[in-house]
């Protein structure tokens, strides 16, 4: 009982109540805190303030409960009820996101209403009203679904122009939407666009395919009508091309597309859109004829002028264009024609060779190829003057290969063998149109490795391909040798055949061999020339080999790479190959002299006087003989210094006399020895 009383007493104690209220307040339990504070009566300002805070917090808690309920209701599919809860919560909390949420929900609610209304309207066949309802939502803000619904309603309501406008900005993923868009396009006369949209529908449904064909026919009809009026060539070309590519082609349509393309080319030539012209021409597969050739040539000229590039493309067409009958037919005065042609070639050359964006190496390469083409064009111009050849369209080798006309050009060359001043001219011109033409182009550009890589095997007895092959291998091998490297295998064998067919290149080879100075290069030439000379006899090659051998031998001896003996033998061999090799002969004489000197030195140092006399007698070299007598002259001088005994001196002098007399009976040294002997013997006698 006592305990109970104590509790009761505490419960009514204001301090205890305040303390309890504070505790609730601190823990955020505002309803209980408020209850405790109110027990104390509203007397103190602080307490009143706290009760006010409690009231506010209680309201906020209630609002949060409302938010929870709103979300639950929203999930339950009742946006109107959710909006009510959110609005109440917003009145208390005033947070922005709640306002936004309310707006979204209101829109959703409206959308549902409109959808329902639209469905009802559509069900009743009133699509345009449905579209208007959708439009209300669309105007209210972005809504892809509503836009789509509106567009669909417009198609169904047969407001096709509006439907096209409604569909156009939308991303259409559903086939149904694409079909409706295409249908609206067709109904508004945009047949090509309709077909393009329908192409993205993967349906094999017969009625759909039939409808596509129907629209395609409408498009064809429409294009023909527009073409007759010469309307918009660009559209005619693009839509006609589309129909062709889509499999609706016919010869008439193809003709219309081609004609439209040329009409369009006329337009864009004036607009200076030359790349556009090339693109159009590229898409058409046209037979190369004089007018087309000129169009290509002029367009590439303009592109090269504009871009500073495309020199190779320009040169492919240009010379063919200005050496054509179509070009000449523009002039009644032949001199004016030639003058204009020369000017046009100069202008093109400046672009082909001096393109702004071209580096020096590329310019050199293109320049070499351009020169070749100019030469060939000149040859064919000459051939065209000959009536027996009739009229023909000259094509540069590159263009002939591109258009499959190399055979025709080659036939003209063969037919006119007697026109060519030399076999080399004939083979060179024919080589440009042979199957190995590409390799030949690389060759003239100095790209030997590429030339070898692009070599093709021609038919048997194809002299032009053989010529190109010979030229390519010749140049490649020579290039290797000039760098001191071995030429490719079988080089010697190939060159022997090639030199027989084209002797000019044998001369070139010999000239390169004789100009060589480096020891390694000389060695390569000696190896190759030795091999070629072994296999067949060519006096010129033998002479060259002989000279290369003697030149290499002197170079080697001067660098102490061979002995005097090897040097001598090399020279002898060179002289055997060509006895008229004066270089070898002169060197051999010196070499023999050197060898004799060496032998003389050796004999004298070993006191082999008979041998020394033999060498001095047999040597052709005056130097050797002089050296022999110099030796005895020195001995005479030494003897005076080193010997005291007269009898000894007399002995040696007689010995000297004997050896010297064997070599030259009338040499001055003999008189000197005699004099000395007389002097010594006179003294002794006295």
């Amino acid at each position, binding site marked *: 009982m006592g305990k109970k009383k104590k509790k009761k007493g505490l419960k009514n104690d204001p301090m205890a109540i305040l303390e309890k209220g504070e505790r609730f307040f601190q823990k955020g339990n505002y309803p209980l805190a408020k209850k405790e504070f109110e027990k104390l009566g509203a007397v103190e300002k602080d307490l009143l303030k706290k009760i006010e805070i409690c009231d506010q917090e209680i309201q906020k808690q209630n609002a949060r409960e409302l938010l929870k309920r709103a979300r639950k209701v929203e999930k339950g599919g009742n946006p109107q009820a959710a909006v009510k809860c959110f609005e109440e919560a917003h009145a208390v909390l005033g947070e922005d996101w709640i306002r936004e949420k309310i707006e979204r929900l209101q829109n959703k609610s409206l959308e549902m209403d409109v959808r329902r209304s639209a469905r009802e309207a559509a069900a009743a066949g009133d699509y345009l009203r449905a579209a208007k309802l959708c439009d209300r939502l669309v105007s209210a803000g972005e809504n892809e679904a509503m836009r789509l619904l509106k567009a669909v309603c417009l198609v169904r309501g047969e407001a096709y122009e509006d439907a096209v406008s409604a569909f156009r900005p939308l991303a259409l993923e*559903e086939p149904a939407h694409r079909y409706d868009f295409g*249908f609206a396009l067709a109904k508004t006369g945009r047949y090509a666009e309709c077909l393009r949209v329908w192409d993205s529908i993967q349906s094999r449904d017969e009625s759909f395919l039939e409808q596509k064909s129907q629209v395609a026919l409408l498009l064809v009809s429409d294009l023909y009508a527009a073409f007759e009026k010469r309307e918009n060539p660009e559209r005619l070309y693009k839509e006609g091309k589309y129909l062709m590519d889509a499999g609706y082609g016919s010869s*008439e349509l193809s003709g219309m597309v081609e004609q439209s393309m040329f009409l369009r080319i006329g337009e864009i030539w004036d607009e200076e859109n030359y790349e556009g012209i090339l693109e159009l021409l590229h898409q058409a597969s046209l037979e190369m004829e*004089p007018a087309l050739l000129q169009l290509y040539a002029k367009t590439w000229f303009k592109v090269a002028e504009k871009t500073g590039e495309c020199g190779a493309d320009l040169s492919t067409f240009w010379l063919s264009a200005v050496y054509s009958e179509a070009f000449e037919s*523009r002039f009644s005065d032949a001199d*004016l024609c030639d003058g204009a042609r020369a000017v046009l070639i100069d202008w093109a050359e400046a672009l082909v060779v001096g393109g702004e964006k071209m580096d020096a190496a590329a310019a050199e390469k293109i320049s070499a190829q351009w020169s070749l083409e100019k030469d060939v064009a000149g040859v064919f111009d000459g051939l065209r003057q000959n009536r027996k050849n009739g009229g023909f369209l000259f094509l540069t080798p590159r263009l002939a290969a591109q258009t499959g006309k190399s055979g025709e050009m080659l036939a003209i060359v063969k037919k006119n063998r007697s026109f060519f001043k030399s076999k080399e001219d004939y083979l060179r011109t024919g080589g440009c149109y042979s199957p190995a033409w590409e390799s030949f182009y690389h060759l003239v550009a100095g790209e030997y490795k590429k030339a070898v890589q692009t070599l093709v095997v021609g038919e048997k007895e194809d002299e032009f391909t053989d010529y190109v092959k010979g030229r390519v291998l010749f140049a490649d091998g020579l290039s290797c040798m000039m760098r001191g490297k071995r030429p490719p295998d079988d080089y010697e064998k190939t060159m022997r055949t090639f030199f027989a067919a084209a002797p000019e290149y044998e001369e070139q080879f010999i000239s390169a061999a004789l100009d060589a100075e480096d020891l390694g290069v000389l060695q390569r030439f000696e190896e190759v020339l030795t091999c070629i000379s072994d296999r067949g006899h060519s006096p010129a090659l033998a002479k060259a080999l002989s000279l290369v051998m003697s030149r290499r031998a002197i170079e080697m001896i001067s660098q102490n790479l061979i002995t005097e003996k090897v040097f001598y033998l090399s020279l002898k061999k060179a002289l055997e190959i060509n006895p008229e090799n004066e270089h070898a002969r002169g060197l051999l004489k010196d070499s023999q002299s050197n060898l004799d000197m060496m032998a003389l030195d050796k004999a004298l140092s070993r006191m082999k006087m008979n041998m020394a006399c033999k060498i001095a007698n047999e040597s052709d070299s005056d130097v050797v003989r002089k050296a022999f007598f110099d030796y005895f002259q020195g001995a005479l001088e030494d003897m005076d210094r080193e010997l005291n005994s007269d009898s000894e001196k007399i002995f040696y002098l007689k010995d000297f006399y004997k050896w010297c007399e064997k070599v030259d009976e009338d040499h001055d040294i003999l008189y000197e020895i005699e004099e000395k002997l007389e002097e010594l013997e006179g003294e002794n006698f006295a």
Partner: protein
Amino acid sequence: MNPYKILNIGVGIEKRDIVMAAARALRERRFSAKEVAMAQRELLDPVSGAAHRFLQFVDLDPFLKAVTFKRPKAAPLSDLKRLKIFDEDS
């Protein structure tokens, strides 16, 4: 350089007209005096004039043939009815 563009003239113009066009081009100042003078000189010279006549114009007449079309028998546009085969998908 296209002297015809600089002088704003077409092909087949007389020498006298070239000179007048050059004077007009100088007044208009769309191109420098040097460019106008060079354009005039190029066109007045018979050889370079002939070369420019070839280069600056394309003759498309050889490509443009008289084409007659047999119009295909297409059903009128009004016969094109909206198909409902795709409606289920939407």
